[in-house]
């Protein structure tokens, strides 16, 4: 983890409300593990003080990139920044995905919307190729299919309006795949990043078919380094539960550890 002022190499529109931001960060880039995030201070934001967390999409020897959606004043201001502008970044942060071992389980990746970006490094660094299931509302919400195809991964898309791939939720083709290979089911491991309802559905599928699953949780965050205790989720602890930090113990959690409904 380093805090640095870094320069924007590129900040360009991908599709619709999605942008690709490339940052020159030669000291940070080599440290990045799949599933980690960068905590970004958007300096032109004067009265909105807090940093914004973004999953890291790609990393080279001296740059890393972020694929983000404009959803509020922070990301709107970020989208107006240009190559040469500077951002303050704390990265890489958080506990990421376990990279599959060679000859181990076949990774099935499940992504919703810009959650797709958080899965790319995992796919790239996995010696074991698998399938990535990606879902979104419309065609424009299905991101970076080309990048996954370029590294030899099969992509199966689902859109809610049916404009691309299968019509419906991403968990439908995922469940179909698991059912097809039920005899070899112990060879699958699920990895997911996306909206919480999707993660919950993936967690339930994993439970139902007794598959290991790692879920990258998307929680409102403040400090990003474990001090403020904003981004906590309930996690099993003995025969009870406790709040753990998405920024530090997560964002990636073992699906079996997550408590979806607190009963008090």
């Amino acid at each position, binding site marked *: 983890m380093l805090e640095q002022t870094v320069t924007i190499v590129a900040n360009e529109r991908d599709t619709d409300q999605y942008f690709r931001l490339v940052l020159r960060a030669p000291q940070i880039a080599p440290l990045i593990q799949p599933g980690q995030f960068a905590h970004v201070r958007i300096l032109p934001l004067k009265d*909105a003080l807090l940093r914004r967390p973004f999953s890291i999409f790609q990393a080279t020897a001296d740059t890393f990139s972020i694929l983000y959606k404009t959803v509020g004043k922070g990301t709107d201001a970020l989208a107006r920044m240009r190559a040469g502008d500077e951002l303050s970044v704390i990265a890489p942060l958080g506990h990421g995905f376990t990279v599959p071992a060679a000859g181990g389980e076949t990774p099935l990746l499940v992504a919703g919307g810009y959650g797709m970006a958080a899965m790319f490094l995992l796919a790239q660094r996995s010696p074991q190729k698998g399938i990535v299931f990606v879902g979104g509302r419309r065609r424009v919400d299905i991101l970076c299919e080309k990048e996954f195809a370029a590294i030899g991964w099969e992509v199966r898309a689902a859109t809610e309006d049916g404009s691309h791939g299968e019509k419906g939720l991403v968990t439908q083709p995922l469940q179909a795949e698991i059912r097809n290979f039920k005899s070899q089911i112990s060879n699958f491991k699920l990895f997911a990043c996306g909206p919480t309802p999707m993660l919950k559905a993936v967690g339930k599928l994993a439970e139902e078919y007794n598959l290991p699953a790692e879920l990258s949780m998307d929680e409102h965050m403040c400090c990003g380094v474990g001090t403020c205790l904003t*981004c906590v989720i309930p996690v099993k602890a003995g025969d009870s539960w406790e709040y753990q930090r998405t920024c530090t113990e997560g964002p990636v959690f073992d699906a079996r550890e997550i408590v979806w409904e607190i009963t008090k």
Partner: protein
Amino acid sequence: MQNPVTVASGTFGYGAEYARLIDLNQLGAVTVKGIRLNPVLGNPTPRTAETTSGMLNAIGLQGPGVDGFIKKYWPFLKSLKVPTIINIWGTTVEEYAEVARRFDALGGVGALELNVSCPNIKAGGAQFGTDCNLLAQVVAACRQVTTLPLITKMSPNVPNIGQLAKAAEDAGSDALAVTNSFPAMAIDIHTRKPKLANITGGLTGPAIKPIAIKLVWEAAKAVKIPIIGMGGIQNADDAIEFLMAGATAVAVGTANFYEPQTPLQVIDGIRNFMERKKISDVREITGSVQLPKK
């Protein structure tokens, strides 16, 4: 303290979290998040919300309890060259005293900060900080069980901070921390729901600074003991303003969350200001605001 800059309780975890980003040994002291006797689960989420030039929080003092803190965090804090200020709280006067006694027995603690001003818990906290009698009872009970310096962290939500400041001083407090967060609320207009699960929370950040400056000024007029000023400090200019209002030291709070280098920048900035203004002792700045002559 080697310099007059610490961090505000609750904005710096237990120190270790920031050790990889800043050199903690350059601080005047490390102040840790509030601890009561037993572990605390904390409030449901969302626990914080960004507001204009500030933020709301209602964390609910999630924490490991005295034993958990000593086991998990104390070995690291003890190894630092700078003192640790431990923020303590309870739901009864007896619990405050018991936590104070435990930390007195631990040895090596720099000071205890009595949190009588957290707005986000149902029992304890602010109820002790807004009533002169209860406040005096908490301070006196802790005073009886420890020789450690006691810092009373004051609530801003009082009609006359001078009276409470005096009550804390008279009961044996060695210093005051002014101020805790301001009770506040924000609503999401699209969902019509409060932005915090706790409905209300405490406002911190630059938005509260001028109000905190006035509270420090008023408290300083009422007591002789030193005051640690805090509330929205982002840079050395802000810190110097607190000193001029009457503070002897300052704490950086919310700024740690977005710019972890702030405490060190404040230390450097105060030093530069003193050189430029030919001030040899930082204590000369304390209370040096020049009021118009009547």
